[in-house]
């Protein structure tokens, strides 16, 4: 199909993070004039790979060959210099500068006296923008552009550096359908210019529409690479998922009680569209969705963290006051947030102080703390969850990710709850800690809690849930019982 010369060849890349092997000897190749899709579930290693190519991470082993030359990428500057440009989902533009300044950020064209040559900079930016079919004034402030236009500025930046490889990381996640088709036109132009494009996505229909070849990663390993004509969606999904999962997850809770959490027609300005759901006592409901589907937004809206434009939540029949997390917590709702550092831990405080934050009332009378009771209870949970910490007074900052996550879980286990919402409870933690958390989820349901688990990890979803809800574009687009939930059916509902 696309028989250009080999541009980039990656062999046997290994990347270890504490407790996790993110990449375990993976390969990747990219030809000139090719659009190559890289697909895989969350945690498959896609992001790690492109961060290595972007010079953000250092590989632990393996080779990167660029036009036959071995590369040692130490910084984003190195990558760009060699001709590799990554357009991340989080765009790296400076909003207070003009398009031209952003495009030439790393190397402003200069006049002989050392001053910036604005005229050249503008005219060259205009040329580049024109070459990808974009008619924007180079003097426009980037902050005034739409997300789609900003993405184009990133691509223009790649062209200004004469990049030969352009890597796009989930480029369509924030775009409207029209913007997506324009992006595709631009990507095809890049292809015609002989660039190699690595297109990282989990939207399979885009892959089939746009790409020439596709590579699948799973659990840090390379599973397959083939021409797009030689495969189909079913095959790709099975390559992405293909793993025995059921036995890993304890599922001992039985018997379901009354409805405890009831969500009716929840909408937010930003994301959610008429979301309704119910969770009963002793039931684990899993909510699946790809990036940007609205899982975290739903968790936060239920807890009163974000402003809700319509709809309501009730716990045990009692309606919650909109926008009051205090009221939600008092009603017996707990939320394990996805963003561990931003919304989970107070880093300056100790392990025990972080654990007891929502349940201080239980360790005090008339507002005066009993440190003895607090320490006893914290120690109990440190032991119960086998949290590795030298003492209760250790600052939580110095714990590993998995242990920090356990501290956050302990925070809610300490409290008497009716409903617990767990948003990505096992993100970024090692396998051992993961299965302990799965065991805890089962125990919580056994104790009669209503459990809502937001997850983007398919095995986890199927392993812990009694019922599965699928989200896509802020709506619930599918509901499956435990028996009816298959990976294919769920992915189809999540992608459609």
């Amino acid at each position, binding site marked *: 199909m696309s028989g250009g010369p080999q541009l980039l060849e990656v062999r046997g890349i290994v990347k270890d993070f504490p407790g996790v092997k993110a990449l375990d000897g993976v390969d990747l190749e990219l030809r000139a004039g090719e659009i190559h899709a890289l697909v895989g579930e969350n945690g498959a290693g896609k992001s790690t790979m492109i961060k290595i190519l972007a010079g953000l991470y250092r590989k632990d082993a393996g080779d990167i060959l660029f036009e036959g030359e071995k590369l040692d990428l130490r910084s984003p500057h190195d990558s760009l210099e060699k001709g590799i440009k990554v357009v991340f989902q989080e765009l790296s533009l400076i909003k207070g500068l003009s398009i031209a300044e952003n495009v030439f950020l790393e190397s402003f064209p200069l006049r002989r006296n050392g001053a910036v040559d604005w005229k050249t900079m503008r005219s060259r930016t205009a040329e580049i923008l024109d070459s990808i079919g974009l008619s924007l004034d180079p003097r426009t402030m980037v902050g005034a552009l739409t997300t789609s236009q900003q993405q184009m500025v990133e691509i223009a930046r790649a062209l200004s550096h004469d990049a030969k490889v352009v890597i796009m990381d989930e480029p369509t996640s924030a775009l409207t359908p029209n913007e997506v088709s324009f992006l595709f036109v631009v990507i095809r132009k890049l292809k015609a210019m002989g660039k190699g494009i690595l297109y990282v996505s989990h939207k399979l229909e885009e892959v089939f529409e746009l790409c020439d070849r596709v590579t699948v990663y799973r659990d840090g390993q390379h599973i397959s690479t083939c021409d797009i004509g030689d495969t189909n969606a079913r095959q790709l999904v099975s390559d992405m998922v293909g793993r025995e999962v059921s036995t890993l997850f304890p599922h001992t809770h039985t018997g379901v009680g009354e409805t405890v959490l009831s969500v009716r027609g929840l909408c937010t300005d930003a994301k959610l569209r008429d979301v309704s759901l119910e969770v009963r006592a002793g039931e684990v409901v899993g909510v699946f969705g790809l990036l940007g589907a609205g899982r975290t937004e739903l968790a936060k809206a239920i807890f009163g963290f974000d402003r809700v434009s319509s709809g309501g939540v009730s716990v045990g029949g009692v309606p919650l006051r909109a926008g009051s997390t205090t009221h939600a*917590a008092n009603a017996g709702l707990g939320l394990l947030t996805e963003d561990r550092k931003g919304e989970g831990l*107070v880093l300056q405080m100790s392990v025990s102080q972080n654990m007891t934050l929502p349940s201080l009332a239980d360790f005090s009378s008339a507002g005066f703390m009993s440190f003895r009771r607090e320490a006893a209870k914290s120690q109990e949970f440190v032991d119960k969850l086998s949290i590795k910490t030298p003492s209760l007074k*250790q*600052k939580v900052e110095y714990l590993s990710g998995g242990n920090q996550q356990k501290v956050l879980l302990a925070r809610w286990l300490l409290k008497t709850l009716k409903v617990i919402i767990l948003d990505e409870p096992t993100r970024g933690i090692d396998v051992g800690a993961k299965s302990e958390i799965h065991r805890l989820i089962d125990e919580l349901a056994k104790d009669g809690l209503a459990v809502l688990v937001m997850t983007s990890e398919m095995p986890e979803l199927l392993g812990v849930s009694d019922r599965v809800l699928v989200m896509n574009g802020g709506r619930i687009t599918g509901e499956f019982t435990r028996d009816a939930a298959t990976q294919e059916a769920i992915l189809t509902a999540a992608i459609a």
Partner: protein
Amino acid sequence: MSIQRSARGSVLLRVMRYNELGLLVVAVLLFAFFSLGSPYFLKVRNLSNLLGQISMTMIAGVGLSVLVIAGEVDISIGSLQAVVAIPLVMIMNATGHFWYGVIPALLTGLLVGAINGYFVTKLKINSLIVTLGMFYLLRGLVYFATGKVPISDKTDDPTFYTVASGKLFGLIPYMAILMFIILIAFIYILRHTTFGRRLYAVGGNPEVTRAVGINPERMKFKAFLICGLLSSVSAILLASRLSSANHMAGQGFEFQVVAAIVMGGVSLAGGVGNLVGAFIGVFIFGIIQNGMGLMRIGTQYQLVITGLIIVAAVAIDEIRRGKA
């Protein structure tokens, strides 16, 4: 909170890890220096004065520390010193009784704290900006109200004089006793109550507190009230010292308090620091000013030296903590 990194190690090591130790050393060195530098420094009379001098700074410093730990700041407290004195002295003059003036004076402080708190927590305006505005606005109001002429005390109630100038057994200023009561009460509140714990959490990471059902805005609002209230207590003491409502009162006071508590390890980033440290910071500041006065060091040198000591104390603390 200045909790050590781990509970292991000897008692000495544990003590060493407390931020306050370095400061205490600075305080002791300064104490020794001025004892040698001036024959009057170690006199009982001077030490008693010194205690009185730091009381006003410390009482406002407790309030400001509470607010800074919650992650906000108030630089209108200097202007507030002058504002609070106006209802105090006017109502005293009208009624002839000191205590009748105290209630409206305290309410004025609470009101200003509430206004600051409203703008910061409801309208989400940066507290530095809000209280900077209040800093100018209040001083302007004082100029209006006094016509730039001090309103002097026309009562013959001796209490007004006694609160700031009286001493227990002729030795310990009543002001200092009040200061220690407030200080110890708030040391206890910050350490041993749920309010204190939540305050540190709000200053440490307000989003986390929201996620555990604590309303960070409400906590911050309360901190503004405490700051306003305690600042008005120090304002009453200042008015008593001046025995008038003076339009110039409290100029530069806000920065003195901020500098002293920051030197004492209360971080402007929020969530870090304690009142023992803040007290040592205020104490160091007091020693420097008192000692330099006694040694008859010129004002120009005093300002330069004060500036150097603030920057040096904080820098030393940062370096020590970085290597800890």
